[in-house]
């Protein structure tokens, strides 16, 4: 017999180990946080949101070197920039030292007559040429001559200067010692755009680690502080924080639970056996999600394992029933009907998550359902075979059960408490929901503030407000953008924005370029008018031949296209602002310094341009979260109906169903009021934890209301329920102490919820004859 048992234990152990190894080896865990977020709204919004998560703005790394000596900072800035160029992990890197590379300058210079924003029909009139030449003479005589006189011979009308003024932001970062600095000169600033996508936490953490190491080599004396900021930095830090917290708290919680189980039942073997269903459940759930979704998200995995806390209850039910006399399989068969009902209804509850369009929640729902069902099946079929014959837990805790019965006598406590809770909620105006997605962010406010400071200093666009213009071709979208420019300028003039960016600024539409080309005079006309303008001015003959040749060339140049700007910083900038998908083109115009986005939205609507829309990403994200929450609530309501039906089929009496449902409902109301009183605002994560509480509550209520054959049996079962509740409180209580809002939400909700479920179930349960137990 022992041999058989040992054999089975070994088999079970190896199956679990194999399963774990297989799951870890074959199911890819991805850490792309953006895949968890819902895709919402209409097609344009989804496109823009996607671009903002994966596009240039998400890849932008803001770098600051903090120190006291600006000269040293400038030097380190230059060295770091060189490393960034050489390292090849950056598509683009700048520190203010060269706004345009030599080849970029040459290319733009060549096209200056088609790109210049000020070129008009009278740029080449005699009078204008004369005025330009006189101004150039004055430039030569001015003490600033050396700075002003370059390319006078090829560009006397100064088109290139106008072009440069348009391209480089007029309120750009402060330049000092040739590089960008914050206004107080305490920070040297750099910008980098990574090859890796913004929300790919793995790749980003590699890039950031390499950057920090490189800087440590540069700053041998450790006097300068390197600060990194941006969406990519946040996602890496979030992931690291979450991982660290989950590890730490997971270890603490597991240790506490193991100790608690041992203390409750006095048997190490029981502790080992109770781990089997949950491990099997986790393995099967991971494999299942991997099969269906092609991988599992790290956050889903972590979250899912916590939701499997309900599986912990099942082996405890079985193991606490063992009395050494009855066969384990008979024990489980006795309680199986109740347990089966509990499992089914819990799975129905989790299915509410499965049917949302929220990818993260769907994965989580599937994980939880698979885990729960597997855990129950393992408890029913495998666990009895692993129990040594004659095994019984030594401690039975009847004293605790008597205490519970005493508490439960105060029947009216629950209705009163529920009324009080409803009053509290009503007083607060039912404002329980967290609507701001920023509250869910694990990034501390301090860091968000620093990011905004760096963003303002660098003139980098916010990742927030954007105007999007849609059209059927690149040319059409550029033309539409140009048409909107005067309106945007008026918004700036009225101080509703501080600035904006658009692709058409760097790459005018071909129509505009041709129009400017049309203003260029023919060779003879120009020569004649230019001679007239030159009369009397002391320029040497032939000085302006390059100018005449350039205009002649420009008359026949094909318009500048995107291809001509490949491999330049400007080309990259254009790529981030002009998007194409399936034949539709989208131009993005990131806005800077929007203070009142509702007003700007109203303005944009008043333009009556059907192709142009204003998107405030923070509002959109919040809106999406709210709409998903509403959808999930609807699905939960459906789930509740389904649960009610299944319970009715299982219990065959409306009263019995009510006895199960009312405690759970009361517990949820109490929980909501408690959380609200503690200052917690309910988010989607709280909602997911509510489902866990419902699962636990169903378990408790069903077992409390079960017809027990003997008082001893009742005592064992109730003690088992107390132990279950205890383990749940320990595990989730540990999470409740986390610094992360998400983990704290889950922990508080589950710990408080399971306690209140137990108490409500105990108080509202069917009255058994407890007399026999007291003797």
């Amino acid at each position, binding site marked *: 017999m022992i041999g058989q048992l040992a054999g089975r234990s070994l088999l079970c152990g190896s199956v679990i180990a194999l399963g774990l190894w297989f799951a870890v080896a074959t199911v890819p865990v991805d850490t792309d946080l953006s895949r968890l977020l819902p895709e919402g709204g209409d097609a344009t919004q989804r496109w823009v949101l996607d671009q903002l998560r994966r596009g240039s703005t998400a890849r932008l790394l803001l770098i600051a070197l903090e120190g006291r000596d600006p000269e040293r900072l400038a030097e380190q800035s230059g060295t770091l920039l060189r490393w960034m160029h050489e390292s090849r992990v950056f598509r683009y890197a700048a520190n203010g030292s060269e706004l345009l590379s030599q080849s970029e300058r040459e290319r733009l210079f060549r096209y200056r007559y088609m790109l210049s924003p000020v070129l008009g029909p009278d740029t080449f009139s005699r009078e204008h040429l004369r005025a330009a030449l006189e101004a150039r003479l004055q430039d*030569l005589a001015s*003490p600033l001559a050396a700075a002003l006189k370059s390319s006078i011979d090829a560009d006397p009308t100064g088109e290139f200067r106008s072009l440069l003024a348009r391209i480089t932001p007029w309120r750009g970062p*402060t330049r000092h010692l040739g590089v960008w600095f914050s206004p107080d000169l305490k920070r040297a600033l750099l910008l980098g755009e990574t090859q890796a996508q913004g929300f790919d936490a793995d790749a980003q953490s590699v890039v950031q680690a390499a950057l920090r190491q490189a800087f440590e080599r540069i700053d041998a004396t450790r006097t300068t502080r390197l600060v990194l900021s941006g969406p990519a930095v946040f996602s890496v830090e979030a992931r690291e924080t979450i991982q660290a917290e989950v590890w730490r708290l997971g270890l603490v919680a597991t240790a506490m639970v193991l100790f608690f189980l041992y203390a409750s039942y006095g048997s190490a073997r029981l502790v080992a056996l109770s781990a089997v269903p949950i491990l099997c459940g986790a393995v099967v759930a991971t494999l299942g999600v991997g099969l269906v979704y092609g991988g599992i998200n790290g956050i889903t995995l972590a979250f899912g394992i916590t939701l499997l806390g309900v599986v912990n209850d099942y082996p405890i039910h079985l193991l606490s029933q063992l009395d050494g006399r009855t066969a384990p399989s008979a024990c489980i068969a006795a309680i199986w009907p109740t347990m089966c009902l509990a499992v089914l209804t819990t799975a129905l509850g989790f299915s509410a998550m499965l049917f949302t369009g929220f990818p993260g929640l769907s994965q989580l729902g599937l994980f939880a359902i698979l885990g729960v069902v597997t855990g129950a099946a393992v408890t029913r079929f495998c666990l009895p075979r692993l129990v040594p014959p004659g095994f019984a837990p030594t401690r039975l805790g009847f004293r605790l059960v008597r205490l519970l019965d005493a508490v439960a006598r105060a029947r009216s406590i629950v209705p009163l408490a529920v009324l009080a809770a409803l009053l509290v909620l009503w007083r607060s105006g039912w404002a329980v929901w967290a609507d701001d997605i920023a509250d869910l962010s694990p990034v501390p406010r301090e860091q968000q503030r620093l990011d905004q400071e760096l963003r303002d200093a660098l003139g980098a666009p916010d990742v927030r407000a954007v105007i999007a213009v849609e059209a059927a071709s690149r040319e059409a979208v550029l033309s539409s953008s140009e048409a909107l420019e005067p309106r945007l300028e008026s918004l700036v003039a009225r101080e509703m924005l501080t600035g904006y960016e658009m692709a058409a600024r760097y790459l005018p539409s071909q129509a505009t370029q041709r129009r400017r080309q049309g203003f260029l005079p023919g060779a003879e006309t120009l020569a004649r008018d230019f001679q007239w303008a030159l009369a009397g001015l002391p320029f040497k003959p032939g000085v302006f031949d390059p100018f005449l040749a350039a205009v002649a060339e420009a008359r026949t140049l094909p318009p500048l296209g995107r291809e001509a700007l490949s491999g330049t910083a400007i080309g990259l900038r254009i790529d981030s602002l002009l998007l194409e998908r399936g034949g539709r083109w989208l131009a993005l115009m990131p806005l800077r310094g929007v203070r009142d986005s509702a007003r700007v939205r109203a303005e944009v609507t008043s333009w009556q341009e059907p192709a142009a829309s204003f998107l405030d990403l923070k509002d959109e994200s919040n809106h999406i979260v709210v709409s998903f929450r509403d959808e999930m609530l609807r699905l939960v309501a459906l789930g509740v109906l389904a649960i009610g039906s299944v319970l009715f089929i299982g219990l065959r009496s409306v009263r019995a169903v009510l006895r199960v449902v009312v405690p759970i409902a009361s517990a949820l109301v109490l929980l909501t009021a408690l959380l609200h009183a503690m200052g917690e605002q309910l988010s989607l994560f709280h909602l997911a934890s509510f489902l866990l509480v419902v699962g636990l509550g169903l378990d408790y209520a069903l077992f409390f209301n079960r017809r027990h054959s003997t008082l001893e049996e009742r005592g064992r079962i109730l003690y088992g329920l107390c132990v279950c509740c205890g383990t749940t409180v320990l595990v989730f209580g540990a999470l409740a102490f986390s610094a992360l809002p998400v983990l704290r939400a889950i922990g508080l909700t589950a710990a408080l919820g399971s306690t209140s479920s137990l108490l409500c179930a105990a108080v509202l349960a069917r009255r058994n004859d407890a007399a026999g137990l007291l003797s």
Partner: protein
Amino acid sequence: MIGALAGGMCGANPVFASEHALAAEELLIALSKGRETEVGFEEASFSKLLTAPLVTRGVLRFSPPSRLERHTLAPYEERQVVDGDRIIHERPAEGVRHVLSLTDHPELRAFVEAFRGVLTGDLATLRRSYELTVEGTRREWSMDLRPHDPALGQLVALIRFYGENDGVTGIEVRAVDGDRSVMVMKEMPQ
């Protein structure tokens, strides 16, 4: 220093009456006796693009320690004022007015410091950006400033101050490509 020229307002310093070789320190100490004053100038700009030099006339004003103004009066009106960290460039006839921050344009700042440094005798600032060479004697001297920094070197190759005793009589600025300007101090225009 300019005052020395405008009617000999600054008295000749008897300490330096002898004709020994001059050191930069001595010269700058002597020049640092500047006070608010103004002097006329005539400047000729030579460029390889031009057949003849451009001649401008105007007034230079200096208010120690940091306000320097160059007001061109003929043949057109133009004004550059350097005050602390800002440089204001104006051409009233064209309605042009630029304000630049010297912090944003370090080469320009070093260029301006050459003039401010000489006028206030600030040897330390001058030495930071330039290499100083003094030739001649106390009675007739010239001081060359050559920039250390190649970025500044793009703007100017050499700034040369000429002078007699305590005052500057002329300034020559030479650019890398051979263009240069020569400024000579004159009486105030009427």
